[in-house]
């Protein structure tokens, strides 16, 4: 089949322009609306942190399903943390996702590396003031270094 090109009607095109809500107003209202969900989402984040701990305790060797569940849970934390001011926790969760996706590729398991992430994420959950930003950034950097180290080690071992 040869590639066929067409120009369909863009149904959104008529909705942008001079009418409607400005970006400043829209973003302010959307942010205020999202803020009403803070409590539920904080609970959800804490439950997911606890779930990660339980999953780690029950995993002693590589298991595709266990790694996937850890990954999904961590990814869920990553998806919402920054919306509620927990940027560093989100980056820690991203680092754990990166580590777990490497486990999946290499079919390996390293409980210590996961535990370091979970302990650090527990700390990052509590570091949410501007004064803590430098400390939080340092922790996140260490986690990313750990993942890079793991990646290099896995690549070297073929």
């Amino acid at each position, binding site marked *: *089949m*040869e*590639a*066929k*090109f*067409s*120009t*369909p*009607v*863009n*149904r*959104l*095109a008529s*909705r*942008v*322009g*001079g*009418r*409607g*809500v*400005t*970006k*400043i107003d*829209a*973003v*302010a*209202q*959307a*942010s*205020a*609306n*999202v803020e*009403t*969900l803070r409590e*539920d*989402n904080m609970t*959800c984040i804490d439950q997911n942190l606890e779930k990660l701990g339980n999953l780690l305790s029950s995993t002693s060797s590589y298991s595709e399903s266990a790694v996937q569940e850890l*990954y*999904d849970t*961590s*990814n*869920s934390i*990553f*998806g*919402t*943390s*920054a*919306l509620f001011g927990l940027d560093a926790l*989100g980056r820690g969760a*991203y680092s754990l*996702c*990166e580590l777990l*996706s490497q486990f*999946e*590729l290499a079919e390996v398991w390293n409980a210590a590396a996961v535990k370091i992430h979970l302990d650090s994420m527990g700390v990052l959950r509590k570091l949410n003031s501007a004064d803590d930003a430098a400390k939080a950034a340092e922790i996140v950097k260490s986690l990313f270094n750990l993942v890079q180290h793991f990646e290099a080690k896995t690549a070297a071992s073929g």
Partner: protein
Amino acid sequence: MIRRPNSQGFCLDLATASIMIVGDKANEQDILAQMLSGFGVTTIQRRASASEALRALLNETFDLALIDGEMKGNDGYELVKDIRRQTKESLRCLPIIVIRGHLKKNDVFKARDCGANFVVAKPLLPQVLFDRIVWLARDQRRFVECDTYVGPDRRIKAFGPPLGMKGRRSDDLSEHVGEATEANLSQDAINDLFG
């Protein structure tokens, strides 16, 4: 360098728009619904699975779909592909934003090839969603259909973001040059340029 207005200058009128949110995480659906509501959207439908979403999309016309790429079993990306295979043009060409969190190396191609208008990374902040919807509304990419891909032309770097949007290539000269502001050069003047 051409100075273009940024997206701050655009207004969105989504009061009568119909938008579908598809994802299997209720809290993330709530967040998206609240953002859209803040943008003035009143008709928001939510579906928790790809099959439910496709059924609804076949029965009604939507202006935009926000699809979580990470639903169980990569259903999000598959749903986009299914939509792009439909015969009804209004559904096949539906503007789609896929939202994804961490992307595994194996899934990079799935995200690129599914046929979504945009794949946007989490955390999805309200300003990012607003920008993407404005971008989508001003998107003039052609729609491509071939054996291996159906969706908007992916060669976006050839022309950069739409006029007025921020982005890596937003300072590129525009293809929309507009009317000439001075008289054309005469043939003699052109000949002089080449010595």
